[in-house]
C-alpha cells in the first residue's frame, strides 16, 4: 500500500493516520529526525532518487495523459508502449502524467533512461513507438520526433540536442505552480512528497501560528486568480475574525469560460498541490470542513481529486489531528451540474447547498455568512495552488516576482489562431506581445494579428496597439479588459469583432440565471442589436426594423453601462465587457456593419455579396449545378451571373470553382 512506501525506509517510524507524528513530512524532506541512522537516511535518499528519476535501474516512459493528450490519442500511444515494453524490459516503468502545457505538440512522450537526462518527444503516434523504444534500447534518441532534452546533471553525450527548458515555448515561462504538471504521476502521492510536497503544510502546522500564516500570505501579495483579484490574505483574515462555531473552505473549480482550461490542467496534473493549499487555508482561518466544487464536465479531474483525497487521508494529511497538531480537516468533492453562473461565489454556495445556483446580493460576504450560513473562504484552484509555493519560498521571495500591485505568476490558456496552443505560466508584468509572439510563436498561415480576448466572456478584446501593456490586475482594467480566470484567445484578421461580441452575448444570454433584470433582459437587448447589425437588409421586412438597427446602436453603450452598474453578480456586471471593448477598439468595424452593411473580415455571411468575375469565368456550369438555390444562370462557355436575391451565401460556388472566378465582398 502506498502509505508504507516512506515508512519502510525509516527505522521504527510509528506515524499513521490514527497516531500521527508531527515530524513525518520533515523526515521525508530532510532525513529522519528520531532513531537517526545512516542506513535509514541512505534508504530514504535512494527512494527519493528513484521517485524523482535521478537514479534508477530501469528505463522509464512517461506519457502526457491529460484530457488534451487523450483527445489526441494518448491512450493508443500508451497501449503501443505497453506492448513494446513488455517485449523488452519487464521492469521498465510506464507512467501516465498530467499535461506539460504544450498542447499544440501532443501526444508528448518522455523517456528517462538510467544515467541519461530525460528527453521529450512530441506529436508521437502509435506508429512512432517502435522506433522510440528501439532507440532507447541502444541508449539513443530519435532525432526527428525530439522536442528537447531536459536540463540535468549530465547531458551524457546528448549535448547536441535542444534543451527542453530553453525552447521558445518554455524559455519565458516561470513554472512555480505548474512545476509538477507533466513531470510527476498525479496519482502517486509519493512522487509529490519526494518533490517536497506537503512541506509547506508541515511548516505551517509545526512552526507557524494561524496569524503568521495569514500575514505571510498577505505579505506575499497573493491575489485571487479566479478573476476578481481580491487579496487572498485579506479574505482569509476576514473569515478568521468572523465569529462562528463552524467554518468552511471551498475550492472553486467550476471553470466554465469558453477557451479556459487552466484549472482542469492543474487538477489533472498536480491535485495534491491544490489540496495542500486548502488544508493550509483551513488551518489559518480555523475551518474543519472543505469542499472542492468541480464541474461534472471534467471527469478526469474528478477522478484525480478523489484519488488524491483518499491518498492524503491514508497518509494522515487529511482527517483528524493532522500531523499531531490537533487540527482536523475533512475534504469532500461536489460535482457541478452544468451552469456557468455557478462560478460566482454566492451561486456556487447555493449549488453546494443543493439549491438552484443563483447568486445573492453581497454583503453579507461569504467570509461572514457563506456556506450553510457559516463563515466561508472561497478561492479558485490556481489561488490554492499558489499557497504552498508562497509558504515554501517565503513571502519576500514570492513578492519579488511580478509587479508593484500583482505578485507571483499567472497561468494562461493560450488558444485560437496562434501557433503554440497550450498552457503557459508567466510572471506578472510580462506583456501580451511576449506571450503571443515569443511563447505562442505568432499567428499561423502568415496572417496578421488582430486582437486577443482576455478573460473569456467577462473580459475584453484587445488590439495590437495595447498589447505591450504589462499584465497585472490594474493595467488590464485600465485598457478595458480584466485578468479573468486566464483564457487568452488569439484572433487573426479573418475574425469579425461584431461577430465575436455576438458570440459572447449568445453565451451570456443562455447562461444568465434570470434572477436580476439588467442581466436577463439587458443582455437580450444587446444580442438583438448585434443580430440586427449582422443581418442583411433583405431579412428586414419593414422599414421599422431598419430604424431599430440604428436605434440599437445609439443605445448600445448606454445599455452596456446600465447592465454593468446595476446587475446583481459578477456575471452580469461584466457581461457587457466584450461589447464595450470591441466598441472601444474596433468602432470602425461596427460602423462598416451599420452604414456600409459590409463585414470587413468577411465573416457575417448575410452581409457578403457573391459575384462572378466575368474575365475568369469559363462558363463550365459547375457552380450553377452546385448551387442549391438555382441562383446562378448563364449559358455554356459564357460567363455566368449570380442572382443576388436568390443567393443564400452557402459558399458552395466559391468552394467548387476551379478558376477562382467567384468574388466575395
Amino acid at each position, binding site marked *: 500500500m502506498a502509505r508504507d512506501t516512506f515508512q519502510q525506509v525509516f527505522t521504527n517510524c510509528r506515524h499513521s493516520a490514527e497516531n500521527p507524528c508531527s515530524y513525518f513530512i520533515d523526515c521525508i524532506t530532510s532525513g529522519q529526525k528520531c532513531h537517526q541512522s545512516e542506513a535509514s537516511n541512505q534508504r530514504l535518499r535512494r527512494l527519493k532518487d528513484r521517485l524523482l528519476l535521478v537514479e534508477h535501474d530501469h528505463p522509464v516512459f512517461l506519457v502526457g495523459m491529460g484530457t488534451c493528450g487523450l*483527445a489526441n490519442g494518448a491512450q493508443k500511444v500508451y497501449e503501443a508502449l505497453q506492448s513494446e515494453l513488455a517485449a523488452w524490459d519487464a521492469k521498465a516503468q510506464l507512467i501516465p502524467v498530467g499535461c506539460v502545457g504544450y498542447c499544440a505538440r501532443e501526444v508528448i512522450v518522455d523517456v528517462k533512461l538510467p544515467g541519461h537526462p530525460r528527453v521529450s518527444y512530441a506529436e508521437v503516434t502509435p506508429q512512432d513507438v517502435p522506433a522510440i523504444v528501439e532507440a532507447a534500447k541502444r541508449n539513443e534518441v530519435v532525432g526527428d520526433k525530439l522536442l528537447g532534452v531536459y536540463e540535468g546533471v549530465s547531458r551524457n553525450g546528448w549535448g547536441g540536442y535542444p534543451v527542453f527548458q530553453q525552447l521558445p515555448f518554455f524559455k519565458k515561462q516561470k513554472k512555480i505552480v505548474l512545476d509538477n504538471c507533466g513531470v510527476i504521476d498525479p496519482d502517486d502521492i509519493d512522487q509529490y512528497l519526494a518533490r517536497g510536497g506537503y512541506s509547506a503544510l508541515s511548516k505551517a502546522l509545526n512552526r507557524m501560528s494561524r496569524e503568521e500564516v495569514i500575514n505571510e500570505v498577505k505579505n506575499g501579495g497573493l491575489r485571487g486568480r479566479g478573476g476578481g483579484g481580491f487579496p487572498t490574505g485579506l479574505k482569509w483574515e476576514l473569515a478568521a475574525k468572523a465569529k462562528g462555531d463552524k467554518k468552511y473552505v471551498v475550492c472553486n473549480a467550476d471553470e466554465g469560460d469558453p477557451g479556459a482550461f487552466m484549472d482542469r490542467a492543474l487538477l489533472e496534473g498536480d491535485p495534491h498541490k491544490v489540496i495542500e493549499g486548502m488544508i493550509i487555508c483551513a488551518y489559518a482561518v480555523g475551518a474543519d470542513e472543505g469542499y472542492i466544487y468541480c464541474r*461534472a464536465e471534467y471527469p478526469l479531474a474528478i477522478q484525480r481529486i478523489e484519488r488524491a483525497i483518499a491518498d492524503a487521508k491514508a497518509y494522515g494529511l487529511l482527517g483528524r489531528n493532522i500531523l499531531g497538531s490537533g487540527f482536523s480537516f475533512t475534504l469532500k468533492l*461536489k*460535482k*457541478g*451540474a*452544468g*451552469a456557468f453562473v455557478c462560478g460566482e461565489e454566492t451561486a456556487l454556495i447555493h*449549488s*453546494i*447547498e*443543493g*439549491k*438552484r*445556483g*443563483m447568486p445573492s446580493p453581497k454583503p453579507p460576504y461569504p467570509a461572514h455568512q457563506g456556506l*450553510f450560513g457559516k463563515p466561508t473562504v472561497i478561492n479558485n484552484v490556481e489561488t490554492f495552488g499558489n499557497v504552498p509555493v508562497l509558504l515554501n519560498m517565503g513571502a519576500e521571495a514570492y513578492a519579488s516576482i511580478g509587479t508593484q500591485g500583482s505578485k507571483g505568476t499567472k497561468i494562461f490558456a493560450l488558444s485560437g489562431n496562434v501557433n503554440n496552443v497550450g498552457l503557459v505560466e508567466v510572471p506578472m508584468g510580462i506583456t501580451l506581445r511576449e506571450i503571443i509572439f515569443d511563447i505562442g510563436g505568432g499567428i499561423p498561415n502568415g496572417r496578421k494579428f488582430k486582437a486577443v480576448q482576455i478573460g473569456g466572456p467577462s473580459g475584453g478584446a484587445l488590439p495590437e496597439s495595447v498589447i505591450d501593456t504589462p499584465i497585472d490586475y490594474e493595467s488590464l482594467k485600465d485598457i478595458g479588459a480584466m485578468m479573468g480566470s486566464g483564457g487568452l484567445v488569439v484572433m487573426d484578421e479573418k475574425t469579425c469583432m461584431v461577430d465575436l461580441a455576438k458570440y459572447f452575448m449568445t453565451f451570456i444570454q443562455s447562461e444568465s*440565471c434570470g434572477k436580476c433584470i439588467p442581466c436577463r433582459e439587458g443582455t437580450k437587448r444587446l444580442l438583438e442589436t448585434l443580430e440586427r447589425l449582422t443581418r442583411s437588409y433583405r431579412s428586414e421586412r419593414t422599414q421599422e426594423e431598419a430604424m431599430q438597427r440604428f436605434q440599437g446602436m445609439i443605445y448600445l453603450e448606454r445599455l452596456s453601462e446600465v447592465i454593468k452598474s446595476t446587475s446583481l453578480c459578477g456575471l452580469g456586471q461584466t457581461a457587457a465587457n466584450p461589447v464595450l471593448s470591441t466598441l472601444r477598439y474596433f468602432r470602425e468595424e461596427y460602423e462598416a456593419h451599420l452604414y456600409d452593411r459590409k463585414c470587413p473580415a468577411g465573416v457575417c*455571411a448575410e452581409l457578403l455579396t457573391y459575384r462572378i468575375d466575368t474575365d475568369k469565368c469559363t462558363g463550365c456550369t459547375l457552380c450553377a449545378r452546385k448551387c*442549391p438555390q438555382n441562383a446562378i444562370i448563364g449559358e455554356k462557355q459564357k460567363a455566368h451571373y449570380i442572382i443576388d436575391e436568390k443567393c443564400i451565401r*452557402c*459558399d*458552395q460556388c466559391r468552394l467548387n470553382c476551379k478558376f477562382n472566378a467567384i468574388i466575395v465582398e
Partner: protein
Amino acid sequence: METESILTKYPAGDPSALIAILQDIQQVHGYLPEKELQKVAKHSGLPMARIYGVATFYNQFRLQPLGKYVIRVCRGTACHVKGSFNILQTLENELGIKAGQTTRDLMFTIETVACIGACSIAPVIMVNDECYGKLDSKKVKKLLNDFRKAEEE
C-alpha cells in the same frame, strides 16, 4: 441500481445532497422520471417544486427520456458553411420532430451541439458515440433507414 438504494447512500432530510442524488438517478435512467423524483422528495423532505426547480436550472438534467439513438447535429462554423442546416432539416422532416425532441417510440432524439471538433469531415453528426461525416440529405436518409432496419431485426 434502484432509486431506493441510491437514496440509502445519502442521509435522509439533507437538502444539500439533492444534486448528487439527481446525478445518480440520471446515471441509471438516462433522465429524471417523475416517479423517482417523488421518492427523492419523500426522502429529502423537500417539496416537489424545489426539486423541479433544481432539475430545470442545471443543463445536465433532463426530464424527458432520450431516444435509443441520440443524434447530435454539429452546428459549428465549419459544418454550418458545409450545409449542416440542411442536414438538420432533413432529420427533422424525416423523424417528424424538432431539435431537442424525441420521437414517440423513444427511438430517436435530435440535439444540436456547438462543435464536435471533427471539422475536417464536415458536415458531421454524432449518433450516440459514433461520428458520421461528409453527409448530405441522401446519406442521412440512408443512415436513418439503416438504424430502423437494425431495430427490426
